[in-house]
């Protein structure tokens, strides 16, 4: 089973993403901030992390860097899932170390298609 951690502070968007992941047959867990994200990563082995950027406290870029700098988690793919969708944003987040980038609002078909390849 594929385990996915969703880091997202908006409850509506959290519910939406969890629902879609559930429909896809993934096992999804959600946290709303960086501290919880790191704690959860320590306790559970995830196959994929979906990371919002604009978060209370640490932003998604920082959390991503902390996780990637830890030898234990550096192989977990982290996808930026963000409403920062201006020209150049995708390149910026990839350069920061994210494995992929999906802009909000999500396009359902595109979204499911992109996540398929992480299925275990």
């Amino acid at each position, binding site marked *: 089973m594929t385990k996915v951690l969703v880091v997202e502070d908006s409850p509506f968007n959290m519910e*939406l993403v969890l629902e879609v992941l559930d429909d896809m047959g993934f096992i999804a867990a959600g946290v709303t901030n960086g501290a919880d994200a790191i704690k959860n990563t320590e306790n559970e082995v995830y196959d994929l992390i979906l990371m919002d950027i604009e978060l209370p406290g640490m932003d998604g870029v920082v959390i991503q860097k902390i996780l990637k700098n830890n030898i234990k988690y550096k192989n977990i793919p982290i996808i930026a899932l963000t*409403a920062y969708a201006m020209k150049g944003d995708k390149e910026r987040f990839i350069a920061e170390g994210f494995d992929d980038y999906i802009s*909000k609002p999500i396009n*359902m078909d595109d979204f499911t298609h992109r996540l398929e390849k992480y299925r275990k």
Partner: protein
Amino acid sequence: MKHIMKLSAIVLSVFIIEFFIERSIDIFSTDPVSFERTIEILSEFFSIFVAFSIFSMTWHAYSNSKDNHSLFLGAAFSVIGLTTLFHLLSYPFMPDFVTSNSLNKADFFFIESRILLSLSFLTSSYIYKDTVSIKRFFLIPLIIVTSVISIFVSLSEPIFPVSSFRLVDPAGTVLIFFISVILLFSTYRYIIRLRETGQNNLELLIYGMIILIFSNIVYRSYELSAHFLIIIGFFFIYMSLYKSSVELPYSKLALAEDRFHSLRQSINDAMISIDMNGKIIFWNNGSQKMFGYRENEVMGKDITILMPERYREFHKEGMSRLLSKRDPDIIEKTIEMHGLRKDGSEFPLELSLSTWKDVESRFFGSIIRDITERKHIEEIHIENERLIYANKAKSDFLTIMSHELRTPLNSIIGFSELLKKKKNASLTVKQERYVDNVLTNGINLLSLIDDILDLSFIEAGKIKINKETMPVQKTIHEIINLVEYKALEQKVILKAECDPELETVEADIQRIKQILLNLLNNAVKFSKKEGGIVTIITKKEDNKALFSIVDTGIGIKDEDLVKLFNTFSQVDSGSSRKYGGTGLGLVISKHLAQLHGGQIVVKSKLGEGSAFTLILPINQNKMTTSQKALEM
């Protein structure tokens, strides 16, 4: 040679004069001895007078000339003059001077003055003009000491074996010879110095010295001529020192003044001086150019005519403050204010003040610079800063707005899609249409946000065009694929007619796709339902690529064509409700075409359809490519 001629002429004329005087004494005078004495006293007296003149002139000129050489010689001449005076007073026919007079005593003083003279010249030949400046005060004790010593030596004459000192004696001859040698040596040094430095005044000095040597030589045989020669020699020395200590510094000053005058006349800045009553006393050409007044129009006028009304009171206060304080703090600072031209116009200026005073009055000088240009540049700079800031604020705002609008749209669109796709949702037909409506409008809103952001960035000049080689046919097919579904829905037929000669275009592929998609979407949207035809035609014309999108739609009225590319203008306000969209697409497309160096042209007939043509230069890098080829 010239010099020798001159000197010979002088000496000769002196001898001729003596000869005639001797003759006239012999012929006319009843008492030749007393007449001769009178002449002698007069000539002695005259040389004393010249000696003291030399002293007084060099002494007083020193404060300006700083000429150590002249000062020393002057001081020496004061002692020489003094000893010559005592020599005169010691003649037997004069009343007793301190001790009883004798020819011997007079000779002592004479010899002494000769020795002093020769030693002074020897010393002065080692003093140069440009050595360290000294305080005159220290020369006074030196003069006094030397004078006192020489007086005492001569007055105590009885101590020495007097008779052997008489000038006719061999001892006297040796002494005169010795003195002459010293003088000759000094003269030699001065001649060398004249050659080295080219100081013209030294020439006169040398003349004087040579004449003095002559006077020494002839003294014993022709006493009267010797006296005349001394006067003439002293006079040459006087002239020489006058030149070096008065004339030279003065002409330097005059030259400096001349230079400064031409400088301040040619300078572009205005230089204006006023007296303590605020009346203009100096006005240069720069001032005339700046203020428009000629010199004769403003001389003696009050400086306030050059200031706008609002500064005048302030100026008066400032003047009285300046005059009351010893060390005014406004001096040497730069002040910015406004000037008033003759024609009444104002201009910004920068002003720096200086002040000086003579015995009874204080003056103020100002250098004024017209800073209109600088102010203008400063204003532009400030405006630029403001624009940069505003631009940054705008783009920050856009970034945040984009983010904040997309976040709720994610839920709106996402949940609508979920609702639509969930198989167990069991919606009624009506409910399904509602969901569709939410979804469609959500997507419309999203594309509106994209359009607004695009437009904002284009207007802020933040769009970059990344040119690459765009394959035309492939691009056209990709676009058709994207619109095909929609065309099918509306039962509009899509056709493409591609010119095989137009293979590639140098352009930003994404941006060209954006333009063509927009045009194509519009064409489909405004086509007649069922049976409408939209044709994409590509064509190569010279170095231009033409992309025409022709529809058989509702067409556009002529008067509306011009409005087409304006922000937020759909042709009629009703149509936005009917056809959707904001009309931003065409504006963005036009800007993007322009950024490529191209344009969009429209032809339309109401009721029959429209043709939108994107015209692009095929090879925009033609110049640079050929340049590259050249470089290789």
